[in-house]
């Protein structure tokens, strides 16, 4: 199998994921009548604006109503509201795909815009900062500790990590975050309870950055705490599995120093499965981010999700569901490429 084929197959699956999610979104919205409601809201919004501008030129109220009525019909036709929902599916897919979802009910960007896409893109960087930092820290700790555990299988630390890893399957990330707040913020007053900036926030850029870091400590700590145990353990297991292969014994027999054996014959070989494990953990990380952002009032997409739910804002929820899928799919694809780079058996 060539690289092209592998990438095409994986890419096709991920594209399928995107399409499946789009379909789930639009079919659900259509079948439950929510899309009608959303579009109708957009129509009335437009009409209200037009009424104001038209009121300037058309004095006669009857005339105005008439014009507005015809405008309304135009708009209904434009949005396809005169047709049943399933005939509008292609349009609906395009709308979701382009995040053309109209306005949020009450949520606003800092600049005051209520457009869903602007709301999402304003929050996007904050989520990415949080998730990538947490992921990087987790990956580094996991690799570092995991490799050391593999050398000392059965040691006390090894057992402790294996329990920790099992326990993290039973630990809700958000609750962990709340407990961190209770301990570090409420009891010990060490760290802020949430948000991204202090009020008032520092004026110089350096102080601002520090302020963000200061606020990010607990959310990142939470994200790392819930995933590091399992990840470390899986690194340890994969390193251990590779270490039992015969070519590792052969490498030792060749008189190579242990450092080379570990680096070239164990880690290098275990790298693709480790990458896979990272890939598989990604969906969990995004889910964890939604909850952690909510707990820490971190103004990212996850917190926006929560705010969208609280304000019963369908457009925001739809946009975010899709956006999270997109981020996941893109990240997955990048990791698949990484996998292929790591494993020559796929490359050729």
């Amino acid at each position, binding site marked *: *199998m*060539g690289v*092209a084929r592998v990438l*095409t197959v994986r890419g096709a699956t991920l594209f399928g994921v995107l399409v499946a999610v789009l379909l789930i979104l639009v079919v659900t919205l259509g079948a439950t009548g929510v899309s009608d409601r959303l579009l109708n809201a957009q129509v009335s919004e437009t009409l209200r604006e037009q009424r104001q501008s038209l009121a300037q030129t058309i004095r006669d109220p009857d005339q105005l109503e008439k014009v507005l009525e015809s405008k309304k019909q135009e708009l209904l036709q434009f949005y396809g509201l005169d047709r049943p929902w399933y005939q509008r599916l292609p349009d609906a897919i395009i709308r979701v795909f382009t995040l053309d979802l109209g306005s949020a009910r009450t949520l606003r960007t800092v600049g005051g815009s209520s457009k869903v896409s602007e709301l999402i893109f304003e929050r996007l960087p904050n989520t990415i900062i949080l998730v990538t930092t947490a992921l990087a820290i987790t990956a580094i700790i996991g690799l570092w500790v995991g490799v050391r555990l593999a050398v000392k299988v059965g040691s006390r630390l090894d057992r402790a990590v294996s329990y920790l890893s099992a326990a993290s399957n039973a630990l809700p990330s958000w609750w962990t975050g709340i407990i961190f707040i209770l301990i570090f913020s409420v009891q010990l007053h060490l760290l802020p309870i949430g948000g991204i900036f202090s009020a008032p926030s520092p004026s110089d850029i350096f102080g601002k950055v520090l302020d963000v870091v200061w606020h990010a400590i607990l959310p990142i700590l939470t994200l790392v705490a819930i995933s590091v145990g399992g990840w470390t353990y899986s690194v340890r297991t994969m390193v251990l599995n590779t270490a039992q292969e015969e070519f590792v014994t052969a490498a030792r027999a060749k008189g190579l120093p242990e450092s080379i054996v570990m680096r070239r014959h164990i880690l290098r070989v275990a790298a693709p499965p480790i990458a896979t494990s990272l890939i598989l953990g990604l969906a969990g990380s995004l889910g964890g981010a939604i909850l952690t952002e909510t707990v820490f009032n971190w103004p990212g997409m996850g917190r926006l999700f929560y705010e969208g739910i609280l304000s019963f804002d369908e457009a925001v929820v739809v946009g975010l569901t899709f956006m999270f899928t997109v981020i996941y799919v893109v990240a997955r694809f990048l990791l698949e490429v990484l996998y292929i780079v790591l494993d020559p058996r796929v490359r050729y």
Partner: protein
Amino acid sequence: MKPLINLQNVKMYFQVRSGFFRIQLAKAVDDVTLSINRGETLALVGESGSGKTTLGRLTLRILDPTSGRIEFDGQNITNLKEDELTWFRRRAQAIFQDPYSSLDPFMNVFQILEEPLKIHNAGDPRERRERILQALREVRLSPEEEFASKYPYMLSGGQRQRVNLARALMLKPEYIVADEPVSMIDVSSRAEILELLRELQQRYGLTILYITHDIATAKHFADRIAVMYLGRIVEYGSAAEIVKQPLHPYTIALIEAVPEPDPANRLRERSSIAGEQPSPIKIPVACRFHPRCRFFMPGKCDVIDPPLIEVKKGRYVACHLYPEPMSDA
């Protein structure tokens, strides 16, 4: 004598995905005509990838041939469906290569041996028990009661193969495919299993297809040998004659390559075939052995596919070295 198994122009091609959108054919068995006589042992000899196991599975109809005709006891079984094959399943059985994977680890010996009886609704529980204990006696696993209650992991390789043999015999079949039955057990126990097989063959008049890569055991335990190379039978005849006077260059090379314990070996080169057997998806044109053949005749071997012809009585070879029947010299 009427053959029990008769294969005519049997082909078995498998689809192999190789590259993007490209599906190639692996020609595991490619146009084989062969018959096995009632009561005889035919050894199918070949290296890994020669298609010998596939051919064995075809005679058991666990595979549906791509084309060709398979007859059992004069009846065409080529296209029979599974529920029309019940009678055949009762009469044809198999022994497998791997003593470790051929017995269900979750069943004890009694349950394993009871399975064929259950499937074919043979006998009441008491009769079944009788037959199982008798089968265990026949394969010399005694005390039988004790062995019946053991699980496969408690048995040695040789003992497992005997359970395999007992299972194959439970339904009193006429035909048995023994696919490398001894290649995974110790040298010192191999002859024991093969002897047992031969003894039971004589007792029940079994017809055996003995599939092996080891021409030496084939010589001792088979009446006839068919040599397979890349999905084709290249030579076919009585076991003694083939070993004594191999005709096909592949058979010659195969026999020369087999070592024997002899202190003089280390003083001489072993003759060997150049190169390696290609994959069944890249079968060479014309004579499939020509790229490795030491008698390669350019313009002939790489152009014309030699047919399998009878060069002597009961002796068939597919090679351009033997274009016509040999005079009995």
